[in-house]
């Protein structure tokens, strides 16, 4: 299969269908609308359902129904729409219903702007709905990862019976890059817990209601066990030149790409800099951060928000290393020069010696996804 140039937003839809997804319920919003548009084009052709709902509230509750009936299903939106979906997401987490939700982040709060930000981190990673629950979150930084991580999201959703977010800033959805897809489509499988209108599934019940105190506590503890398992098994991050790094840059999505360019340039000038790009935001790649802290003397977190992921980095490092923060908001992008300037300043303060240019091996050789 040939690599094709396409938007991340289009890659998501194709990947979803190849992963066995047959239902898309959504509501248009910039910068996620191409996802609904591509879904409208393809889902009916593959024997699936596409429906533009009357609101994001309805859309997420349609996912609740579709997932209850045992089909792989998804939606896509952006900040304001995700806010409206939080009710249904909490219900789905409570009722243990898998689904995939793509959030193409724009500016906020409120109507904010349609420019790319990373300011939905808190509402997505921390869970914006009511109750003690988590959603699993993957964070692509290329069109290829929009495809790959969407497929992974469906696997995780079924494995954990839980909603999974594909969280990307607007840039990643709008950007076109070459994408290659798996040759074979995954065959949809109906899970045994689903309610499908058959004798075999007649005794099945989907609910998030547990009226007794002990009953609800036991249910939440059961959910917690799943989250602990995910924390053990699903942390993912890209470590790029972190082995010998004394300053580690941390950023996800588009920022991860910028930091890669900064890392390359810093190393070319002899500075021991590396990049740690979280690929899962929940579970957060805590183990990788701790491992890097053994050698690194400082961490620099860069975000397109007021500082949301940085709190998780600080929590993971628990004060053992200083964590600097640099950000832009409103659709502005942290510049290469600003990050490099901060890195040089830090290196100066730390008295880091500038060595001869450090190697920057080719992308393929260095790129490693850590499965912790």
């Amino acid at each position, binding site marked *: *299969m040939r690599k094709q*140039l396409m938007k991340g937003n289009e890659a998501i839809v194709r990947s979803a269908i190849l992963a066995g997804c047959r239902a898309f319920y959504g509501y248009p919003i*910039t910068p996620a609308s191409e996802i609904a548009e591509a879904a409208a084009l393809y889902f009916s052709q593959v024997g699936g*359902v596409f429906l533009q709902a009357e609101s994001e509230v309805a859309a997420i509750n349609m996912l*609740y129904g579709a997932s209850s009936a045992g089909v792989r299903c998804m939606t896509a939106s952006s900040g304001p729409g995700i806010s409206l979906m939080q009710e249904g997401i909490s219900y789905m987490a409570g009722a243990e219903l898998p689904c995939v939700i793509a959030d193409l982040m724009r500016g906020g709060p409120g109507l904010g702007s*349609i420019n790319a930000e990373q300011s939905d981190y808190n509402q997505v990673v921390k869970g914006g709905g009511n109750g003690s629950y988590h959603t699993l979150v993957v964070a692509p930084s290329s069109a290829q990862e929009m495809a790959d991580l969407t497929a992974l999201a469906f696997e995780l959703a079924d494995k954990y019976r839980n909603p999974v977010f594909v969280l990307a800033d607007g840039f990643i959805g709008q950007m076109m*890059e*070459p994408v290659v*897809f798996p040759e074979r489509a995954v065959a949809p499988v109906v899970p045994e817990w689903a309610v499908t209108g058959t004798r075999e599934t007649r005794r099945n019940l989907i609910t998030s209601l547990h009226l007794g105190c002990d009953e609800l506590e036991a249910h939440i503890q059961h959910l917690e066990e799943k989250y602990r398992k995910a924390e053990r098994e699903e942390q993912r991050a890209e470590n790029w030149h972190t082995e010998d790094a004394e300053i580690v840059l941390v950023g996800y999505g588009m920022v991860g790409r*910028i930091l890669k360019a900064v890392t390359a340039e810093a190393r070319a000038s002899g500075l021991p800099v590396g990049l740690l790009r979280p690929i899962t935001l929940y579970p957060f790649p805590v183990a990788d951060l701790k491992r890097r802290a053994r050698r690194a003397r400082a961490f620099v977190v860069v975000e397109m928000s007021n500082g949301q992921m940085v709190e998780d980095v600080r929590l993971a490092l628990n004060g053992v290393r200083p964590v600097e923060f640099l950000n832009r908001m409103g659709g502005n992008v942290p510049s290469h020069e600003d990050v490099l300037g901060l890195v040089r300043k830090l290196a100066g303060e730390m008295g880091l010696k500038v060595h001869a240019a450090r190697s920057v091996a080719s992308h393929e050789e260095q790129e490693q996804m850590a499965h912790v």
Partner: protein
Amino acid sequence: MSSELLTEFEVIHEKPRSFYATYERKEELQHQTHYCPGCGHGTIHKMLARAIDELGVQDRTVLISPVGCSVFAYYYFDVGNVQAAHGRASAVATAVKRTRPESVVISYQGDGDLSAIGSAEILHAANRGESIAVIFVNNAIYSMTGGQYAPTTLLGQKSTTTPLGRSAQNEGYPLRMSELLATLEAPVYIERVGLGDNKQIAQAQRAIKRAVENQVRGLGFSFVEVLSPCPTIWKLSPVESQRWVREVMEKTYPLGVLRDHTKEAQPRRWPEAVALESMPGILGLTDGEAVLPEELAAVGKPIDLQVRVAGFGGQGVLLLGEVLAEAGLDAGLEVSWLPSYGPEMRSGTSNCHVRLSREAIDSPLVTTPNVLVAMNEPSLKKFDKAVKPGGWVIYNGDTFPEECARADVHVLALPFTQIADELGDARAANMVMLGALLEMANALPQASVDAALRRLVKNAKYFALDERALARGRELFRAAEREMSHAG
């Protein structure tokens, strides 16, 4: 009593099979429901269970229970059960039915759930003609939460949140959902029934069975509103409550059939499954051949094109970039294309970032381009200073603005729009400029550019025009280069 004696009796009335024998999902008192004496839910549940029995669809039935007193409908119905968020039952039912068209989906909702918080969901489910049966239990009050006002509360009726009685001025008028939905084209069947006396109850039984039957027949949206007593909250005896349904509620909510298209309605069609092998083809992923390593872009020099293209919306800025990126991919390079997006697309300026490289591309953002294609003056002024020393500016204009002149960049300034106009269409200026860029960069085989253009410009006339425009751009660059070398 001996078993022989029993056989002498014929059972003419028993608990419907679609109820569980004992209610094991209930914590205590598993032989009876949680409903109050005289509550309409018990009666409606029984009618619904009987309809499911009579139609023989117990295995196929999926019941969506709401938030409200009937939240625990799944305690009683021995069918597939899904419990929904407050007001969302008809959205949930929509997707269950669309996922499993063979199932019989019943959305059971109260008046707070359906007419207030779920008013949007029911309206749109009805308007889409979803093939579901909706049982709407209207008791003119929020009962489970202790008797607050609902949109269905009667004028003057007291509730805990209308302690002086509902006033039209503050809360508006009682919402007649059946009449409202009957204004829509799609619903197949809408009827309002009551539980005011035995005659009404018999009619309610017929209506509920009909709604379920419509779905068994594959027809569309059916809606039965049931005026239902709530003695506990109304603070009336069961008998007085029935009278209140008959004598008071009915005045605001007249009983009767509001829509009946069951004879002429056609069964809904459902999508058919498609073979897995055909998926990549449907998704357009099987076009073209994989790029083989030996076909990789022109040998020799390293390639690192960092291009910013900018101009007015409508000048073909994004397409220029896309053809370049697509051609790069065809030639086996790493590429990225990043647009500015949003309102800028509608008017004003538009720009995109394009990178082509032999190496993996780190950042797709081009903040310091080595080629700037400026299709108008504001774009030139905005991005000119960012161009890398030694880079190129290709500018659409006769004269290069003096304030933008830099000694450390190369400039090709020509009236590209006019040149394109002479070729037959001013809109091809983008391709003339791309031609100049391609000639300058000398990194891509023309065959790759042709392939890219073929993929992106399907119209034969425009394809031919764009090919001419690209060739013209290449000529113009060569001519300019000759001039420069003479001058140099």
